[in-house]
């Protein structure tokens, strides 16, 4: 297994009025391919900022960020879009599905931007939906689906273009406990199949599913611990 991402002395400064806010003040982090990492921290700790940078939605003020041996910290907008399309699969707290489009079309979106021809993208989207257990919900619009189903559509969308990394931001924040557990179980299965997973969360329960917890505070890494194996966690319950 190679290195998935390598972050070195990352700084991100926001200008708020006349003040400079150091959202990230020198973060270094290396994550191997196939890891399952939780990033935790109270609000204002910088966890959203680092998620945006890892997800190539934002670029750092200084420092280096190598994703799969490629320096991405200084890429332009369109190049970052391409990296997001090919390497990152996003899962958001509020699902962020397109309300007017059915499940199938939502899952097809990354493939449309990847330039995959219609027949193939349809086939791959159907496959992805089937793999999250929604083979019978493809023509349903988001408002015809339950919260858990919506999040599974989002997971299918995140995985459909075979990214290197599944990046989730509070994926259970809008779900009840049982449905949240189902989604986290799905993440476990995905990771077990070899996909790197990073979950940004403030819920200990969710973080406990991972095998490594990185805690941030005031823009710096407070702790970076490898937890017991997932099996052990499950057994302890």
């Amino acid at each position, binding site marked *: 297994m190679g290195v998935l991402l390598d972050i070195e002395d990352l700084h991100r400064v926001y200008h708020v009025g006349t003040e400079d806010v150091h959202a990230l003040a020198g973060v270094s982090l290396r994550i191997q391919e196939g890891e399952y990492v939780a990033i935790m921290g109270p609000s204002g700790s910088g966890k959203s900022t680092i998620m945006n940078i890892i997800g190539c939605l934002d670029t750092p003020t200084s420092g280096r960020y190598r994703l799969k041996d490629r320096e991405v910290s200084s890429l332009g907008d369109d190049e970052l*879009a391409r990296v997001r399309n090919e390497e990152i699969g996003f899962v*958001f707290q509020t699902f962020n599905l397109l309300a007017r489009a059915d499940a199938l079309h939502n899952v097809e979106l990354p493939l449309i*931007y990847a330039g995959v021809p219609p027949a193939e993208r349809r086939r791959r989207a159907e496959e992805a939906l089937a793999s999250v257990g929604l083979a019978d919900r493809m023509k349903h619009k988001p408002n015809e689906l339950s919260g858990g189903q919506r999040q599974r559509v989002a997971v299918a969308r995140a995985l459909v273009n075979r990214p290197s990394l599944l990046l989730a931001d509070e994926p259970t924040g809008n779900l009840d406990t049982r449905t949240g557990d189902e989604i986290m179980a799905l993440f476990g299965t995905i990771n077990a199949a070899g996909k790197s997973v990073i979950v940004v969360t403030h819920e200990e329960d969710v973080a406990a599913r991972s095998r490594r917890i990185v805690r941030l505070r005031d823009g710096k890494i407070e702790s970076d611990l490898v937890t017991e194996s997932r099996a052990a966690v499950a057994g302890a319950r």
Partner: protein
Amino acid sequence: MAIDFQESTGIAFQALRANKLRSLLTLLGTIIGVTAVIAVISLVQGMNHYVSDRLLAQGSNVFWVDKIGFEMDNDKIREALKRPDLTVVEAEAVRDALGRKAYVKAEAGDNEEVKYLQKKMHRIQIKGVAGDFQLVDDQEIEIGRPLADVDVQRRRSVAVLGSEVADELFPGIDPLGRSIQAGNRRFQVVGVAKRKGSFFGESQDRYVQIPYGALLKLVSYTPSVSIGVKSADAGKFEQVMDETRAILRVVRHVRPGQPDNFGITTPEAFLGLWRNFTATAFIVVIGVAAISLLVGGIVIMNTMLVSVTERTREIGVRKALGARRGDIMLQFLVEAVVLSLVGGAIGVALGISIALLVGAVSPLPAAVSGVAVGLGVGMSALVGVFFGVYPAARAAKLDPVDALRYE
């Protein structure tokens, strides 16, 4: 560009359907602009065809000579009325001089009440004719016979009726041989002319044709005649006109260097006037349409800006999933164009309907042309592109992090 047009148009139609009323209101300006252009172009073109058809049907190689000529200016008309009258003798001189090169008729007119038994018609045109009137006017006879040279020479009180006069005075009766009264004179009907139809709603069949000499008995003065000349060889039209002018200058004693004391009117002169008139109407309507389209475009731009704001989050999601600036730009540009094209299509349909409706209920004819439809569609597409660029560029420039956070 990764995103294809099909995807963009699909999104555009979804967005249109989602906000039907707003879309319709947005399109009002474009609809009005395109409707105006299509309706006016259709009507003006229809009238152009009609006018040139009818004028050419009268013979493109016919011209008329009278005291005034083709003149629109009131002062000049008043001046021209002081010229000496044209006479039937001068018409004869022209006819003799031109010989076989042309057919020449003389005609003078009067309006009189026409009666047969109890039936009356008011203000019927009485045409007193001489010369080659049948050939110059392309007159065809339905029943009976045309006026003959001998009728004209002997100033006989005989008449050929226009078809409308015949139909009204003699419903179901054979008019041949019967006597009608025109003014204070009686004329024996010898023939009925074939129907010619109407020109701009005015019937061309409401007349009574009598020999020129007979007209003189009816009216108490000698009217100025108008001379109609038809070139036997259409190719020598100009030459015949030049010769006619030269002959008339001699017989009417116009000294060299002096202007003509008569006027020549050609079908082209009528057409030219007509085209001038329609060109003015055109410019006015194009101006109105341009303003409507400008306003329509600004409204479209406003709606698109609202749409971009409303869908900030969607833009963020699309960017997170890999949409590049160009993809987002294209999506919103296509949406603006689809929006304005729908307006254009409605405008084209409305414009054609209006033109056809006007054509059906009024004597104004309408001609729907592909050019007009193409123009309407093209204009609305241009409006969409022009006014869609700015909102689309705003959408494309959105920062993905901010857009995703937008509530």
